[in-house]
């Protein structure tokens, strides 16, 4: 009762505070079609099998989760209204929302939850099975509206995993019917229902009038595939699209001045770094890795190449992740870089390979060119080579003895929105390629130990303290040249309200999004 009272009070205060803003924009209107231009076609519309941003973003419009992220990655109840965790951290019990139905009429209940998670544990092995199979032992139906997760190990980030795009709950009946082809016939509980997917052209969603959380305002959402950056920008200016993703930084000024479109730039969790292959000489020497970090002027790169649409970060963890610690990173200090190189036995500098994909990450090639010049200034001569993405992935996935990479640009965005997933897969000793995603063949047992401690923590304070220590250690013993986290710029018609631009690089709409007529 007391909790309810609090919520009511907060809602009242927030409501009063926001009311003038709402009046200024006009009252939310119902109806209308939103035309949203995304950059690429989704790979899959089955949440358990997608690894693409459009796939996940469209999934978030069609589906719900037990718990969900808001636009700042805080966790809120969604289809679960309450939950408790056992003292040993091994059992989580969720109370489910009542009266919810999937788009095909299948009732949402504890059985549906069990079915969804057993997909990850069983023989089907969807693409994202690795998210849950190492952690969940089994799922029990306690009663119609209560479900219990039994974990193999205590896992302090369990709620983050449940809010991950792959944990969206799909209709068991639809999955039984379509199997792997669920991607072509997705069925969720979300505010919008799937209508059609014309590959390479568009995906159409229509309002779910029976949405449990109230009728959505938009009538139809059409997600178009518009690959070319300038074509998206021109289409927005022409009024053909209401919403576009990924505006090139150099276009932002011109577009804003025109006043015909609105631009929002939000911090994303995508951290870019120059990985260093620590298994190769001379990069096995920590002084060389430190020197490389001192040699790069991150502030200048953010200002001149990204025009402010990025933030310098001290490690490989983006600032909006749970557990991000604002530890002290490497300042730009070429003198110190030279000194460290000399101490390591390279007083006259050294020659390195510097690789980058082209067009995969925002301004990737320009970024690496700048790094090349800055390295030159401390006597590190980097020969730059760019690759097409598939070839690049293939090169970076090679096991240690076959790997040829030395310095390489790579991005990582932990889709669970927490620091541990930002560090562990790309840093842990157990995660070297090809088993995991650690392509720098870095290994620091103390970092591993701290991450283990964070995972096993049963209090948030304890968990975040271990993560902070791990980040401090990663600065002292760097695995990469740490650089920046990009911002995601979206452009929209000034008539559009309530877009969600998540740090997970997902741009989507929900039931409250509306469009002026």
């Amino acid at each position, binding site marked *: 009762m007391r909790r309810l009272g609090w919520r009511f009070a907060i809602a009242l205060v927030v409501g009063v505070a926001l009311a003038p803003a709402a009046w200024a924009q006009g009252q939310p209107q119902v109806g209308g079609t939103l035309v949203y231009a995304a950059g690429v076609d989704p790979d899959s519309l089955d949440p358990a099998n997608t690894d693409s941003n459009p796939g996940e973003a469209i999934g978030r419009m069609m589906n719900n989760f037990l718990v969900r992220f808001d636009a700042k990655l805080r966790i809120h109840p969604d289809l679960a209204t309450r939950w408790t965790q056992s003292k040993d951290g091994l059992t989580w019990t969720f109370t489910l929302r009542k009266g919810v139905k999937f788009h095909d009429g299948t009732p949402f209940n504890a059985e549906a939850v069990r079915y969804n998670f057993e997909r990850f544990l069983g023989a089907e092995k969807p693409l994202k099975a690795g998210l849950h199979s190492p952690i969940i032992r089994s799922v029990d139906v306690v009663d119609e509206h209560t479900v219990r997760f039994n974990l193999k190990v205590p896992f302090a980030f369990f709620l983050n995993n449940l809010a991950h795009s792959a944990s969206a709950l799909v209709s068991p009946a639809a999955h039984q019917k379509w199997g792997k082809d669920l991607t*072509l016939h997705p069925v969720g509980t979300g505010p919008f229902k799937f209508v059609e997917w014309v*590959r390479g052209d568009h995906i159409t969603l229509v309002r779910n009038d029976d949405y449990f959380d109230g009728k959505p305002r938009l009538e139809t959402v059409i997600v178009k595939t518009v690959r070319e950056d300038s074509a998206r920008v021109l289409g927005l200016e*022409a009024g053909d699209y209401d919403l576009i993703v990924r505006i090139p930084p150099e276009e932002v000024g011109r577009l804003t001045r025109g006043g015909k479109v609105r631009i929002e730039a939000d911090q994303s969790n995508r951290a870019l770094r120059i990985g260093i292959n620590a298994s190769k000489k001379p990069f096995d020497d920590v002084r060389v890795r430190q020197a490389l970090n001192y040699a790069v002027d991150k502030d200048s790169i953010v200002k001149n190449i990204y025009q402010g649409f990025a933030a310098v970060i001290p490690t490989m963890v983006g600032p909006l992740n749970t557990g991000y610690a604002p530890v002290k990173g490497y300042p730009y200090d070429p003198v110190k870089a030279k000194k460290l190189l000399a101490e390591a036995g390279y007083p006259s500098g050294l020659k390195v390979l510097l690789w980058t994909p082209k067009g995969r990450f925002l301004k990737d090639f320009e970024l690496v060119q700048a790094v090349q010049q800055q390295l030159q200034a401390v006597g590190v001569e980097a020969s730059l080579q760019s690759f097409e993405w*598939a070839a690049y992935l293939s090169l970076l996935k090679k096991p240690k003895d076959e790997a040829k990479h030395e310095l390489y640009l790579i991005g990582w965005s932990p889709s669970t929105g927490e620091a541990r997933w930002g560090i562990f897969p790309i840093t842990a000793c157990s995660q070297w390629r090809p088993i995991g995603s650690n392509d720098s063949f870095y290994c620091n047992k103390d970092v591993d130990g701290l991450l283990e401690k964070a995972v096993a923590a049963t209090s948030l304070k304890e968990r975040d303290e271990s993560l902070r220590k791990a980040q401090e250690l990663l600065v002292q013993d760097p695995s990469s040249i740490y650089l920046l986290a990009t911002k995601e710029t979206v452009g929209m018609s000034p008539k559009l309200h309530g877009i969600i631009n998540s740090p997970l690089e997902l741009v989507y709409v929900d039931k409250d999004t509306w469009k002026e007529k």
Partner: protein
Amino acid sequence: MLRYILRRIFMLVPVLFGVTLVSFSLLHLVPGDPAEVLGGQEATKEDVERIRREYGLDRPLAVQYLRFAANAVRGDFGVSIQSRHPVRDLLLQRLAFTLQLSLASILVASAVGLLAGVVSSTRPYSLFDATSMLGALFGISMPIFWLGLLLILVFAVRLHWLPSGGTGTLLHLILPAIALGGASAAVIARMTRASMLEVVQQDYIRTARAKGHREGVVILRHALKNAMIPILTVFGLEFGSMLGGAVLTETVFSLPGIGRLLVEGIFARDYPVVQGAMILVGTTFVLVNLLTDVAYAFFDPRIRYE
């Protein structure tokens, strides 16, 4: 004639065999793996191996090719590794868009190209001739990408006359047809002018004029028909390459055509899609060439195929 056409169609079999074999080999020679692309950065070794097994990519290459060929003969091109859409559906969908775009573009190209070429050749070295040949030079030299963006900027953003891209109505086809047809119009105009200038020097043209035919009849019936052979060749080549995929135009105008399907398939190493698209493109080229050859016989009765 019919036997000739049948023989040419039969030739499709070795051509397609060659096309698929070469594209299959090339795809497997370049670095990159569909399972790695699909799995993404986070995929573990286990994930990648599972995807390989699922799509039969763990089999020996010869087995993979033969299985593909055997299914293709039965009209089954498999499913896209990227999206699980059946490749046959993708091809049919894309073919519809590509046909629309190619027909609209070749219409623009031939109307503008023939007209400019014929008029220029009747008034060689006049102001019109100079202007239209300069225009043709411009059309050939201008990158489609740039022209496309410029057209969008003027007609969609500034004037709001036409949509900036995408599909849906005939209006959506106008700008891409101008962008794609523009370069072909330039080629056709220059070829028409050159070919016409040669023909109008001939004795039979003087004879036609001496018989008292009107100039229009002389030019269209006597000169143009005889000048058609080289023009047809260019026409066939241009149309063939349009059908084969106009990747740049499709990208600028966000049209889901064969070209983009092929290029995106290559980037994702989506083998079934690339193979299917190559078969379609190969078939199209052979058929367009055949049509061109048959058209030769129509314009020049001396040409006989036996």
